[in-house]
């Protein structure tokens, strides 16, 4: 069998897009989560929490632009269908992202008496953006169903994702801070994990009823067997992380990055499960990745650039994270 580019290219791009979304969810997940946790933090703690994400958030959000960009350029048909169907949630997401993005900067530059206002806007924007993303995911899982049932399912996923982001945020605070705030973050992490677990249980129970198609994809022999590592591994990681939270923070700050990495792994497993649920559709039940794809010659020219540039991007992103490695200190323009 010779290698068939017109078949392979859409598949490669679906993979790239999935990768971009996964990286986005993990990276922007922690800074959105920190925004949500703002509501529970004191003034001085808020400054430290901002310092823990200040140099990164912009690059984190760029992964969303890349994901939407890939959807736009590789699957123009799907891009139109999905985004017109999700018109209002997308709008809510954008308002949330706009508010929190500018609040980052305004809170540091306005006269002191107005700082509180921007702190509140930062929290609200982060929460709105997280909920909107979860809602969109829920509705998308159900094939862009916007009936009452679909909306209820969307709301459920919205709360679940917001709780998961808060857990990511808490895990990042554990990694980037020390002392009282770090201990507080461990408590936040526990609360967020409980909420996430409740949400995930509800979503898992609701999915078979909400989408028989996905149910059928998972619960047939022998696929069930091949797929079983995904949920089992996730559950084990989850329980292990839960037990860890009782030992954190550890002496010499060992394993402070572990909660974050564990959560990232759980996100990745969940994401793989979602990908399996959709494949080969890019718009559930309507458009497959091949039906929605751009012309092969256009995909090829993007791929050529991506193959060269993506490793460079990942390299300098790591570099930027390393420059700002270690515990967060006051963020000043120097």
């Amino acid at each position, binding site marked *: 069998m010779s290698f068939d580019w017109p078949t392979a290219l859409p598949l490669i791009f679906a993979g790239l897009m999935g990768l971009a979304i996964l990286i986005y969810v993990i990276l922007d997940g922690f800074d959105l989560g920190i925004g949500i946790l703002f509501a529970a933090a004191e003034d001085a703690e808020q400054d430290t929490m901002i310092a823990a994400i200040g140099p990164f958030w912009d690059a984190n*959000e760029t992964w969303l632009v890349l994901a*939407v960009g890939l959807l736009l350029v590789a699957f123009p048909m799907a891009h139109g269908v999905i985004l017109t169907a999700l018109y209002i949630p997308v709008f809510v997401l954008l308002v949330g992202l706009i508010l929190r993005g500018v609040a980052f900067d305004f809170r540091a530059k306005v006269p002191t008496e107005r700082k509180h206002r921007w702190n509140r806007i930062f929290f609200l924007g982060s929460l709105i953006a997280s909920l909107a993303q979860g809602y969109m995911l829920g509705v998308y899982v159900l094939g862009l169903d916007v009936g009452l049932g679909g909306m209820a399912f969307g709301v459920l996923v919205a709360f679940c994702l917001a709780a998961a982001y808060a857990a990511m945020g808490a895990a990042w605070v554990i990694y980037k801070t020390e002392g009282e705030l770090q201990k507080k973050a461990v408590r936040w992490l526990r609360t967020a994990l409980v909420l996430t677990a409740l949400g995930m249980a509800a979503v898992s129970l609701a999915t078979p009823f909400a989408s028989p198609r996905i149910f059928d994809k998972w619960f047939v022999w022998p696929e069930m067997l091949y797929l079983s590592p995904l949920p089992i591994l996730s559950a084990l990681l989850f329980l292990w992380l839960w037990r860890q939270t009782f030992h954190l923070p550890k002496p010499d700050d060992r394993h402070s990055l572990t909660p974050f990495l564990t959560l990232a792994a759980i996100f990745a497993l969940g994401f793989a499960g979602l990908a399996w649920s959709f494949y080969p559709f890019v718009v559930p039940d309507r458009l497959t990745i091949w039906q929605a794809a751009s012309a092969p010659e256009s995909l090829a020219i993007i791929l050529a650039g991506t193959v060269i540039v993506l490793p460079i991007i990942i390299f300098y992103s790591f570099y930027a994270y390393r420059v700002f490695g270690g515990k967060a200190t006051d963020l000043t323009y120097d």
Partner: protein
Amino acid sequence: MDPLILSRMQFGANISFHILFPTITIALGWVLLFFKLRYNATNDSAWMRAYFTWVKVFALSFAMGVVSGVTMSFQFGTNWPGYMEKVGNIAGPLLAYEILTAFFLEAAFLGIMLFGFRRVSNRIHTLATVLVAGGTTVSAFWIIALNSWMQTPAGFEMRDGVAHAVDWWAIIFNPSMPYRLTPMLLASGLTVSFLIAGLSALRYLTGDRSESMWKALRTGVFTAAILIPIQIFAGDQHGLNTLEHQPQKIAAMEANWNTGPNVPLVLFAVPDEAARENKFEIAIPDGASLILRHSTSGVVPGLNDYPGNHPPVFPVFWGFRIMVGTGILMLLVSWSAAFFLKRRHGLPKPLAMLMVPMALSGWLATLAGWYTTEIGRQPWLVTGVLKTADAVGPVAGSHVALTLATYLVLYVLLLIAYLGVLVHLALKAAKDGDSSPLPGVMNAAMSQPAAGE
């Protein structure tokens, strides 16, 4: 209401709000690099103070640009799905390359540029500034390439109603591309130089005579004085390019209803599209023929050659005049300010007071210019390929109206907050003068020495 006109208003509102901030960051990145290099060369801490004042403006503008830019990336799908379906094969790769080669570069090194002065060596910090400035410029390159392809498409063929790329070189360097990129980069330079000059004039008016104020003021005024004649020349070249490739746009810009020789240059008029004539016209005889054809008897295209296929006349005519009028004002102000700074080593108060509102003249001229060229492309979204009306999505008018209203309220509030912070930063810098604490040294192991210590 009609989803088409609402979607157009929404796109117009979003992109107008968005372009304000890249217009600042594209050139401000290079100005910051200039401050940094002057500091490296002279070791004069005033340069670094100017840098730290303006890097805050850069950070805020960049954040505003990012969040409004994310909105743009969704807009194509939410409101204009027909666009990507028809020309996605062309627009897609151009946008993808913008994200891959520019966005990530800017975003990753912005953190180091803003907060890394104490964490990396001076050389790396300068390099980060170069990469961020370069990233913004590369971003402008790709987006202008796409925009000018929509104006003057080339290098493609239509198969089954969908555009397919044939020659990427011809697509990127399409006939009007260089004539759009140059004025846009110059517009960014002018916007930033007037912004710096204007806010420095504000500091001057409050009695601030610090070295960092002088350095910023001189940088702003002299850059503006140098760039504005170049921009006028580039604008003239762009006009001639448009005459060749989009004559109907020229006809609308000049409000010229009938093709013919000896066409006057209309200075003021109220174009009436129903009656196909100009009301209250004030014109210079043969002016348009002279400018466009370099001869009084030169034939200038008229709107009568494009029945039902030309842009709306009123906004294009006036958008062009506002741009040119602002440009002339910029020339007068920057040259007189340059004169006073060179010869008198100070600014007369009235001139300084005029320079403060002129801080936003770059925004006005840039927006007027974009409105002229974008409305001037109508009724086409991609000239000769896709009409705007055929690209609009199936979203209900009420949804579009609701979101449009929210965006507008949000944008007005954010603009007020943004301008408030700019003034606040300028006044704070004026109050601190040369005594503002310079960042550096204190507590970090890898820290660089603060200047002058």
